[in-house]
């Protein structure tokens, strides 16, 4: 079983990658080109205003993520993921017919993943580095980092108001896009969200630093330090060095446990969950039902975990719809939960689903996923070994080329692996559902079971 999973994950990933190589490489290179162009334009636009640079830089994520989503979609099509659905369950989702719709509805969870694993911060660092190179470290020209630092430390209320305004703008765009069906508004909403995340990540760090510095000067911190010293003094009676133990436990957790949890377990699992969204809510809903052993059911909108919040509310609502203040509160709740619904809930449900695929499959998937990341690391080391040590400017100048070399070889493979792994999940659910159905239908044949059934009948 272990070998089956490993073989399927490795061989099928290789096959899909090879079959689609020209197409996925073309899409990947287009995404890379778009991302590099937006970075260059954003850096030049920084001469006019750092805010303009930040707004334009938001396009960077759209290019990278749109390419990833298209590659996943192509791999899913090649693997026939939709064909795994029974014919009478194969309802057409609008993400299957329109690429722009697919990109628009899946970009937000992808962006959330990028932000969660530090890739948004990494991209923001590239922008900051390019601005440093352009202006020098001691220049009077205001950089993105300088503008955000200024806003976070001197005009915090403005920063908070700006964030609230951008959030409301995005929700408004969502609302109008839903009402009018204009896809360009969906993409615009993603751009606004990218800008919002950049602002939160780059500006938020400054706010946290300011808050930390403020906290350090409070009496509360002194009290906490005194309590800690008192507890340590008490435990010293029993020859227990509490600060030393705490330091060791903290360093073991931060250096050994946390990296394993984040890099080895959480990243592959969450990426698989997010990738699953590309294949459609219908696929996910059915996979959930398969997992529960109910392959044909719940076609009512709102009945499954993958239904939208509004549909779920409508499905559960009893009695007359609310009026007055209650209606306003319900609308506000809907707007707020609608946002979480769009961004995180589908991915969380998909994660819950993926977790049920069984430990052997998950272990195999994590292992193969990590092999791809290890290959990426060794390519990086290979480039360093081949070129030798150089000054920082050399690496800044050539970084896009080396990053392309490293990512173009491994990123499409990683995306193909996600599609293959999700198809394997679906196969496992379908097999289990079929086995359960067979077990229910099978007559009782063993003597022990026959006796138990007879006893139960006699008792009744």
């Amino acid at each position, binding site marked *: *079983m*272990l070998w089956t999973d490993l073989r399927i994950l490795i061989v099928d990933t290789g096959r899909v990658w090879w079959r689609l190589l020209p197409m996925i490489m073309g899409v990947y290179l287009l995404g890379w080109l778009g991302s590099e162009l937006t970075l260059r334009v954003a850096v030049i636009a920084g001469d006019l205003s750092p805010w303009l640079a930040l707004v334009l830089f938001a396009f960077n994520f759209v290019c990278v993520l749109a390419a990833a989503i298209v590659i996943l979609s192509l791999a899913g099509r090649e693997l026939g993921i939709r064909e795994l659905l029974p014919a009478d369950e194969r309802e057409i989702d609008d993400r299957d017919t329109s690429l722009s719709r697919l990109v628009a509805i899946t970009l937000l969870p992808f962006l959330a993943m990028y932000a969660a694993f530090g890739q948004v911060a990494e991209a923001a660092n590239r922008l900051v*580095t390019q601005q*440093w*190179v352009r202006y020098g*470290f001691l220049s009077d020209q205001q950089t993105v980092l300088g503008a955000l630092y200024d806003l976070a430390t001197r005009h915090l209320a403005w920063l908070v108001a700006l964030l609230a305004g951008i959030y409301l703008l995005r929700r408004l765009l969502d609302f109008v896009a839903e009402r009018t069906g204009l896809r360009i508004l969906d993409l615009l909403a993603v751009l606004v969200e990218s800008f919002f995340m950049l602002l939160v990540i780059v500006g938020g760090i400054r706010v946290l630093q300011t808050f930390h510095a403020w906290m350090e000067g409070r009496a509360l911190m002194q009290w906490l330090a005194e309590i800690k010293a008192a507890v340590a003094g008490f435990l010293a009676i029993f020859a227990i060095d509490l600060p030393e133990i705490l330091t060791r436990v903290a360093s073991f957790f931060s250096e050994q446990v946390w*990296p*394993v949890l984040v*890099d*080895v*377990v959480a990243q592959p699992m969450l990426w698989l969950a997010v990738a699953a969204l590309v294949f459609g809510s219908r696929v996910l809903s059915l996979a959930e039902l398969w997992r529960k052993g109910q392959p044909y059911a719940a076609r009512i909108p709102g009945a499954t975990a993958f239904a939208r919040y509004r549909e779920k509310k409508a499905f559960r609502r009893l009695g007359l719809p609310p009026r007055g203040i209650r209606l306003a509160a319900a609308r506000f709740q809907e707007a707020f939960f609608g946002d979480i619904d769009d961004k995180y809930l589908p991915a969380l449900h998909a994660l819950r689903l993926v977790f049920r695929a*069984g*430990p*052997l499959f*998950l*272990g*195999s998937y*994590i*292992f193969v*996923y*990590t*092999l791809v*990341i*290890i290959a990426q*690391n*060794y390519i990086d*080391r290979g480039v*360093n070994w081949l*070129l*030798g*040590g*150089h*000054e*920082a*400017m*050399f*690496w*800044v100048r050539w*970084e896009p080329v080396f990053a392309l070399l490293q990512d173009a070889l491994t990123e499409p493979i990683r995306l193909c692996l996600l599609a293959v792994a999700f198809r394997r999940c679906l196969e496992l659910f379908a097999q289990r559902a079929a086995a359960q159905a067979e077990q229910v239908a099978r007559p009782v044949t063993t003597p022990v079971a026959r006796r138990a059934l007879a006893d139960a009948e006699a008792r009744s």
Partner: protein
Amino acid sequence: MTPLRSKLVPILVAIALVGLSAAGLRLSKVPEEANFEVVNGVFGNPVKINNGEVTVSQVKVGTVLKQFGEIKDRTDGVFVAITMTGAATGPKPLEMAAARLLSGDVRYEGYQLSAGVTAQPGFQTTVDSVFEVDPAQMDDLTLELGSNEILHGYQQRVRISLGLRPASAEQWRAAARGVLEPATSSTRAIP
């Protein structure tokens, strides 16, 4: 297979695979502080690096540091002054401002803020870099020179062993009981 074992075995296999993945990932990553190219040099001979070459020519020791004719500091350890010359033979300046001494896992930073050597194209600069070291941990002292960069990538670092083997370290410790007066830096055109 019992039901318990049939459930336990896949979990244990999965944990083993995760452990294997974690070990592989850790081995494939180079820690940031060790991510540089080591260029090994020999004491007394010039070592070529990106924008020029570096030569370490002399090592002096003492317990009292004298600068500009005045006693500046005393130590219970040992002051080590290393005479090094940096020549910018290429078209760009030579910048090897970050210098430290290594002895096994122990790192000694420079006594002064900028312990390394820099030179403009066509020139060579000779400096005496001072380090304060622990006499109990000065076996196989090695000088490491690199550049001080705010943005940093995979850079070159020169390592030159000063020839303090465990056998001779005792002699150095004995020789250290005296005044050490490092020379001031001098710059001249490359001959």
